[in-house]
């Protein structure tokens, strides 16, 4: 395991922000850390970085125990928590020089490389105080990559970015993953995790709701949406096959329940009846966000309150 959490718990006064959380991130994973706002994601990341002390439990990064061996663990990690913060009166290049020194990176070429990777070479000498939110996010990623860490932890890296910026960052994360870097990506966007991660955990109220390969996190639905040249006749045909009550109308599509074998039979029968089939789409694509909300809602039943310091607080 590159990163593991064992019974990680953080209680602020009487608020349980993280509740006996267990995690396991394998080498090469692009691991999604998914949860609604206030689920305890940022507090967990703070504990991984050693910024916050766990009330109980601990984190292991490549066999270095955090908080005990925090400095050794941090040599292998790059990343940021919430919005990356830099010195506004210095240029991006100077900020990276300053931060690089802390990891013994003094090579100017490496600074150029990471600025290039995140698309900031033209603004490298501008003061960071003049940067947009999106540019600061990019600089945060550049800083995370600077010392070529084995594990990169990104806390909502696409938050506040425009669509193109989101696409670029997700592409970059995919590239990092395919290059063998382990990435721990926190997000509250299910589709984002689906696009870039191979494994994920969903947490709510500081507890794990579900963990596993991203494909397995999808709801196991056997419904399909069908669009044909004659929807009325198609409804009759499908009704004969799976029962009229198993066929519904949804936004112009027919939604029919049935296993993979039944779907093959549906298509064959429609074609036999001379009905043109325009599209057959798995219906669960529409239900992912609802599924996520359902999972996190059901975990609310007996869970405690969430991360009280998500938007900053007293040190």
């Amino acid at each position, binding site marked *: 395991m590159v990163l593991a959490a064992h019974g990680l718990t953080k209680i602020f006064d009487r608020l349980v922000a993280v509740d006996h959380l267990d995690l396991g991130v394998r080498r090469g994973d692009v691991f999604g850390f998914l949860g609604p706002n206030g689920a305890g994601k940022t507090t967990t990341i*703070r504990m991984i*970085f*050693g*910024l*916050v*002390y766990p009330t109980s439990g601990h984190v292991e990064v490549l066999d270095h125990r955090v908080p005990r061996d*925090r*400095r*050794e663990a*941090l*040599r292998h*990690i790059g*990343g*940021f*928590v*919430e*919005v*990356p*913060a*830099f*010195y*506004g*009166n*210095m240029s991006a290049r*100077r900020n990276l020089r*300053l*931060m690089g*020194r*802390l*990891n013994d990176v003094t090579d100017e070429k490496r600074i150029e490389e990471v600025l290039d990777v995140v698309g900031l070479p033209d603004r490298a000498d501008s003061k960071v105080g003049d940067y947009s939110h999106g540019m600061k996010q990019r600089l945060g990623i550049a*800083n995370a990559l600077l010392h070529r860490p084995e594990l990169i932890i990104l806390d909502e890296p696409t938050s506040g970015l425009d669509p193109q910026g989101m696409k670029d960052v997700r592409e970059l994360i995919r590239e990092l993953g395919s290059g063998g870097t382990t990435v721990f990506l926190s997000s509250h966007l299910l589709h984002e995790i689906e696009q870039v991660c191979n494994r994920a955990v969903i947490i709510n109220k500081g507890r794990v709701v579900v963990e596993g390969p991203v494909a397995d996190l999808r709801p196991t639905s056997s419904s399909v949406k069908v669009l044909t040249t004659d929807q009325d006749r198609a409804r009759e045909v499908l009704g004969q096959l799976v029962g009229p009550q198993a066929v519904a109308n949804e936004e112009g599509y027919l939604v029919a329940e049935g296993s993979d074998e039944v779907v093959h039979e549906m298509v064959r029968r429609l074609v036999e009846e001379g009905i043109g089939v325009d599209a057959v789409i798995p219906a669960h694509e529409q239900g992912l966000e609802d599924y996520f909300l359902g999972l996190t809602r059901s975990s609310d039943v007996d869970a405690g309150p969430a991360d009280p*310091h998500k938007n*900053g*607080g*007293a*040190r």
Partner: protein
Amino acid sequence: MTLLRSELTKLLVQKRTYVGWIGLVTIPLLMVVALNFASPAPRGGDAAANTAGAANSFFSLAADNGLLVPLAAIAVLTSFLLPLVASMAGGFQLAGEAESGTIKTWLVHPVSRGGVVLSKWAVAVAYLLAGLVLVAATCYAVGVALFGAHDPALLSGGTVSIAHGLWLTLLAYLYVGLGMIVVISLAVLFSTFTDSSLTATIGTLVLVIVMQIVGSLSYFDFLQPCLFTSHLDAWQNLFQGSIDWWPIGKGLLAFGAYIVVSTVAACCAFQRSDVLV
């Protein structure tokens, strides 16, 4: 060393660094202007016996001798401006970084928290000492140009050689510098408890002022040895005919105790604190 170098880099790109230094240098310049253009005040060692009025005494003496202008300057600056600059230098360190969020960017790198506190403390100290050097240099330059350089007069009357006078002035500056390092240490400690640099700065300044007031009330005489502010003027003993080292020694002991206790407490507090900004 890496941390120290990084802290120095940050210090030198901040505008407030230069504002503080300019403020420190402005006061002696104004003082010299006042000395040069005001009507002559009673001069010489007449007021020397009155230690409480030592600032006035140095002020009067400086009008005859540019070499005494640096002493008049620190006698004036020690009461408020130096503690203010020292409070700012210490208070802006950790709390200022917490305020801007950069402290977490710093701490996700493999740095020791104790090392971060000590490097920030050291840079604040370097900033203050550089400020004192600037004050002394400005005072010597302008003072000697306007009032000349003669054998410095003592508060108790009589004079010493220029070389000996320079040596005593250096000791006086080191002593005051150490007193202001106490203020920095307290401000660094305060800045580990808050993420507002203004709160840390003002908190420290209020503590210094309270100590000064308590020290001036005879009812609280029994507290005098424990208040570092009561020892801040002990350097003036260096300019008596026969130097009484005991008040200076007591001051150094008090300063040392404050510095060590505050700095160790700051390291311990920061070591154990949750960084939530």
